[in-house]
């Protein structure tokens, strides 16, 4: 089964996303901020990372940047889940290197579809199987 890493500092939202994606057939791991996420990535080797933007310690922008600059993590697809409006994201000097940006409150089906598209069909039982 593909493994997803969900990085979200709002524990209840984290829980909801986790329930939804587990029900959709994914193995879910969770981190509450960017620093934790970077540690987890080494351990769980996720197939995809879902990232909130505004988080304490290392925020979503920084996390994406670090994941992209590290050869071992550079090809892991990222979905950003954000409460920050698109125009505010566009205004930043450094582009957000995410495969997809979903805005809160997002549509669950849209999220599941995006994950499925990015990790591929659920037949082979994950990339690390």
């Amino acid at each position, binding site marked *: 089964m593909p493994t997803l890493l969900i990085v979200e500092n*709002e524990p*209840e*939202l984290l829980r*909801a*996303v986790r*329930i*939804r994606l587990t*029900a959709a057939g994914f193995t879910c791991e969770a981190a509450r901020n960017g620093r934790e996420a970077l540690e987890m990535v080494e351990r769980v080797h996720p197939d995809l990372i879902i990232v909130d933007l*505004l988080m304490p310690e290392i925020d979503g922008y920084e996390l994406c940047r670090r994941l992209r600059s590290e050869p071992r993590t550079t090809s892991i697809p990222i979905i950003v*889940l954000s*409460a*920050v*409006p698109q*125009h*505010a994201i566009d205004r930043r000097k450094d582009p957000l290197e995410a495969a997809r940006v979903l*805005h*809160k*409150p*997002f549509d*669950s089906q849209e999220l599941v579809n995006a994950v499925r598209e990015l990790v591929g069909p659920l037949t082979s039982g994950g990339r690390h199987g």
Partner: protein
Amino acid sequence: MATPISVLLFEDDEGQALLTKEALEKEGFLVDVAYTGRAGLDRLLTKDYSAHLIDRQLPDIPGIEVLRRIATIKPKAISIIVTGHGDEQAAVEAMKLGASDYVIKSPYMGHLAALPVVIRESLERRQLKHDREELQTELWEHARLLEERNAELRRANEELKRVDQLKSDLVSMVSHELRTPLATIKEFTAILIDEIAGPVTTDQQEYLGIIKGNIDRLSRIIDDLLDMAKIEAGRVILTKAMVHVGPLLEQAVQSLRPLAESRRIALALQVPADAPGVLADGDKIMQVLVNLVSNAIKYTNGQGRVTIGIEEQTNEVQFNVTDTGVGIASEDLPKLFEKFQRFHRTAENGIAKGTGLGLAISKRLVELHGGRIWAASTAGKGSTFSFTLPKYHVEEVFREYIRAGMEEAKRKRTHLSTIILSVDKFQELKALYGLEETSRLLKDLEVVTRDTVRRGAGDVVVRWQRGEMVVVLAEVEKAGAQAIAERIKRIVEAKTFHVNGRAVVVSLAIATVTYPEEATSEDEMLRMTEHRLQGGEKARMRVMVVDDEPKIRQFLKEALEMREYEVLTAASGPDALEQLTHERVDLILLDVMMPVMNGYEVYHLLKETPQTAGVPVIIITAKGERKDRELGLDSASYNYIAKPFQLEDLLAKVRDVLQQQQSAKL
């Protein structure tokens, strides 16, 4: 009459005092005499004088000292020192101490005649100085006030900026703080609805559906609030481009068709095939259209109809969204576009409710484009929401096409060509059939042209009221553009058009401009295309008539102007050459027999000057006076006409030469 000038004279010599007093009083001065310094100074305690005349040598106090004291107690008065011969040095000294002037006594009292003038001038100087000082003070005061006001403004401005920042921080903070809990609620609701957490009864499904509907509404309100805050903070920047009205409306209708179908509302689009373009921010106009159309669908019940149409007016394009719904009470119409106004138009259950901001946002977006928005309604019969967008002049549209085309061409490192087509004798056609009929002819021509160039997106035809069209061809090089231009010409000229029931055959003049071969920048592209456009029209042709005979100049000028040429005249060769350093002409009519510099000399100079070397010249000679061969002129390179000529012959020659020049440019 002006008040007499009062003078106090310090003079110990009685005779001189008397003479001076008399001389001054004759000139209208009022004079008091003090025979000693002390007496004079005492008098100053009780009386003010405009001027003081002080003899340098007084018995008690030296004149210089009197001067010094007056300067101290009456700083604004003038004092003039009177000295004896050979005492100039002392006089200069006195000036340094504050005397306004000095007068040197002459033995025969000749200086008395000068005194009134000296006093008056001194007073005038004093007044001037005083005025200057006052002005200076006033200026300083102004500067100080200005500086104070500036400081206030700066403070107010900073405060405004701070408040503005606070407001936008607040809005984005609130929106962020609301979105995250909303996302959590929405997620758990969806988990329940999708029965991930276990089975849900039918009733529970319905209630969860209501929750979901309200979550969606709340998130739309947040979006609208953010939009509104952005608009009000002046932070919405329109990204204008040419927007084709047809496809835009099509797209709006497509996106709302599911909503209309779910409500069984018929959605009709009435857009003419030749709908104009507008220069607008497509996304923003889309937002307005979606808002108006979705409102219309929502407030129309069962079996209704929503029609979207446009009306092209002289200066604007009007969009109309008409429904067959419940209508709006007339007293509510003016308040419709205010924030958070919702009226007695209740949508049926299960229909997504509005945010109360949609129309207010639409209004502001339309106004940002320079348009207007309004509603008209008949209760029970339905409403029409209309808005306008300013239509742009063809010139502006044309510029916009070129700008966008050039941007694309530069980015892709490819070509951009324009084809300029102009209908021969368009002015005559217009005069013959009227504006309306000829406009129709142009429209037909446009259709033919469009059909001929059709090769995908990026090719555009602009209709010009002067009988001209420009085709902008993306990624087409020179040879390609010329081939297409010739094809258009061939097809158009082989066709028979109908104007006012009569068959008309049209002939076209064609020209092309290509980037980067010819035009190297957007500016050049515009200039060259525009120039070639104008070149196609006779009315814009400029002809210079060079003749020393005023009657002939006038005759030719009138004859040419009647045929819509623009005419410049020069009375001599040097006059012509001078004018041509700053005037551009398309043709020069040059008389040979002129004093100062004859026509042949002028011709040579014209050909030697780069700006005029390419301008065709028609030389006017007397019969049997042709000397071109003798002068080494190649007769093929210039044109001549011999006097006396028939006006028709000259005009035909002018037309021929200009046409040759035109086709040589192609």
